[in-house]
């Protein structure tokens, strides 16, 4: 009952005119970046992070969260209409969505995708309402050794999402950690890794690194690949018949459950859950031969899984401070920029903020459904914007975003340097996701390790003699093995679907 009461309080904040506007902006921007080539949710959130300091934490995070789940809606449009899945997680949607579009049923497929996304997104947020406070409550019992085990779990599993080479992934993770240590040390207050360069004494800001690695290098990549604007044909009726919605409701529900529960695991990205949801739907179907040739359930299930995963990812983020995807890692940086540390204490110390953000996700999901279905034609027109215009706009916004962090040209310089580095890292297939995740989690990892060592007077036994810590470490081991198996399986499914190896590092 207390949870519901807090949620109602959250609604009273989320339904203020300003916060409704923020959720609306977030949902619209998210849908747009989900559709447009060259600008994903990660870079968009990174560019807009400094804006949150002006807007205020509640308003800012509501907008950024809207961008995150809005982009999940947007990604399905190009996958269905053009067979261009912007993210690996949209590949299963295109397997049946595009054949449906070729049969002249692209409109209803988009409608089913939007409804499935809404149903599963809402399921995910309901799960978030009940699971996150429960988990946070348990996590209040955690001491430093448990936190260290938790960070170890997050780092172990997420680094596994490195791509083709584990060695390269681990090196990038350690490099990210090294970058995060620049500046004042956490325990002794000593300046580290500044090498006499004064601006480095304040540390390297993660937002500059993200803008460089994701936004600037992405523009260069888009320019090099001569990214064309997308011409989408005229979309007729987008409203599916009631019978179609009823027939696909089971697929939406199953996809939502797969996406939600697997999305709770750190490192289990939407790329994994969408393929699993698609395969499950094929297995339970009475007509599995229809899959791949225009089966509506093949659109409903992965789209539902995609959105449920995006919602359930907020549970470990809010309750434990563990981001389960790159975009959530940047969002975590956004929390920190506003002086909020996700984790169990967030629910106690900033209860109004947390519940307002959660309530806004209900509001945002409704907005996405109500606004996006009639606006699909308009979104399709916006994808015609040439890359020659998109590129300069992204670069100027990146520059402004990097400058606004501390009103310092040094941060801009760092972003440009990481833009260059990111370009070469992409060329030589060095994954940047582990760098980012280790950068975000590094300071928490170090703090909990040093506190544990101080508590135990230097004995490592502290991690193995406390039941919760030991359980989490064992879980990390199990998840490490399971995620290796799941990633191998997903890679092979992606290869079957698109005909070549694709790096799955979402």
């Amino acid at each position, binding site marked *: 009952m207390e949870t519901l009461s807090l949620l109602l309080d959250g609604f009273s904040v989320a339904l203020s005119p300003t916060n409704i506007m923020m959720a609306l902006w977030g949902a619209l921007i998210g849908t747009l970046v989900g559709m447009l080539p060259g600008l994903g949710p990660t870079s968009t959130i990174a560019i807009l992070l*400094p*804006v949150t300091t*002006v*807007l205020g934490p509640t308003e800012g995070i509501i907008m950024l969260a809207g961008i995150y789940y809005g982009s999940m809606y947007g990604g399905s449009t190009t996958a269905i209409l053009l067979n261009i899945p912007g993210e690996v997680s949209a590949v299963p949607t295109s397997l049946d969505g595009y054949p449906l579009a070729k049969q002249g049923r692209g409109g209803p497929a988009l409608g089913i995708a939007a409804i499935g996304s809404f149903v599963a997104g809402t399921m995910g947020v309901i799960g978030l309402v009940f699971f996150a406070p429960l988990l946070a409550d348990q996590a209040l019992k955690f001491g430093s050794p448990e936190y260290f085990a938790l960070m170890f779990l997050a780092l172990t599993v997420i680094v596994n999402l490195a791509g*083709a*080479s584990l*060695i*390269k992934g681990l*090196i990038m993770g*350690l*490099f990210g*950690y*090294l970058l995060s*240590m620049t500046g004042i*040390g*956490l*325990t*002794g*207050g*000593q300046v*580290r*890794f500044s090498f006499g360069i004064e601006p480095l004494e304040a540390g390297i800001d993660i937002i500059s690194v993200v803008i460089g690695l994701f936004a600037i290098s992405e*523009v*260069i990549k888009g*320019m*090099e690949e001569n990214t064309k604007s997308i011409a989408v044909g005229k979309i007729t009726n987008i409203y599916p018949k009631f019978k179609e919605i009823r027939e696909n409701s089971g697929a939406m529900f199953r996809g939502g459950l797969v996406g939600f529960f697997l999305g709770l695991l750190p490192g289990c990205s939407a790329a994994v859950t969408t393929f699993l949801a698609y395969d499950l739907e094929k297995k339970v179907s009475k007509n599995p031969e229809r899959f791949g040739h225009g089966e509506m359930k093949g659109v409903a299930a992965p789209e539902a899984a995609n959105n449920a995963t995006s919602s359930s990812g907020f549970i470990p983020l809010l309750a434990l401070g563990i981001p389960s995807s790159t975009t959530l890692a940047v969002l975590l940086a956004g929390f920190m920029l506003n002086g909020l540390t996700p984790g169990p204490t967030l629910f106690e110390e900033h209860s109004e903020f947390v519940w307002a953000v959660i309530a806004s996700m209900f509001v945002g999901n409704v907005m996405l459904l109500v606004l996006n279905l009639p606006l699909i034609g308009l979104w399709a027109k916006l994808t015609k914007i*040439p*890359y*020659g*215009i998109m*590129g*300069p*706009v992204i*670069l*100027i*916004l990146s*520059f*402004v975003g990097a*400058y*606004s962090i501390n*009103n310092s*040209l040094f941060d*801009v*310089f760092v972003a*440009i340097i990481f*833009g*260059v580095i990111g*370009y070469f890292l992409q*060329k*030589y*297939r*060095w994954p940047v996701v582990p760098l980012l995740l280790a950068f975000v989690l*590094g300071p928490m*990892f*170090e703090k909990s*390790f*040093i506190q544990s*060592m*101080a508590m135990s007077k*230097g004995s490592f036994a502290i991690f193995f003699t406390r039941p919760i810590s030991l359980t989490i470490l064992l879980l990390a081991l199990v998840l490490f093995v399971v995620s290796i198996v799941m990633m191998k399986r997903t890679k092979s499914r992606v290869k079957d679907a698109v005909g070549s190896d694709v790096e799955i590092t979402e």
Partner: protein
Amino acid sequence: MLADRVGGLISIIFGGLSLYEALRLYPTSLSFYVGDHIMPGVIGIGLIVLGLLAVFVKGQSFKVEYPDRQMMLKIAGIFGVLLGYCVLLYYLGFAIATFLISIALFRIIGSYNYRKSVLFSAIQTVCVYAIFVYWLNMPFPGGIFNF
């Protein structure tokens, strides 16, 4: 692959730097495991070990393709323009610097003629100025013209 080996060597260099920092910080630490030196030490060892593995273990083989000379010049031009933005922002202020830099970016990325580039750049500058300076009140340098 040669590139992976080079990456491994860079990792070893960074690992060495990290170890150097750990040794420099060690005298100020409370104990062997408690202090600002411990993680630089661990990371340093990790980078060196993994760097050695990258140098000696045979990795995935693939072909890296670079674009033609003209495109490479364009890419270098973009980074040059962005660095130039830092300088212009300081001397000319946000509005003028954004306008001039946008013209260059529209020319390089979109290959638009000067007329179109100036038009797009003016629209972009007005929009960015309205959002970040007028609406969000973000402080940017005014430059010598204080604009």
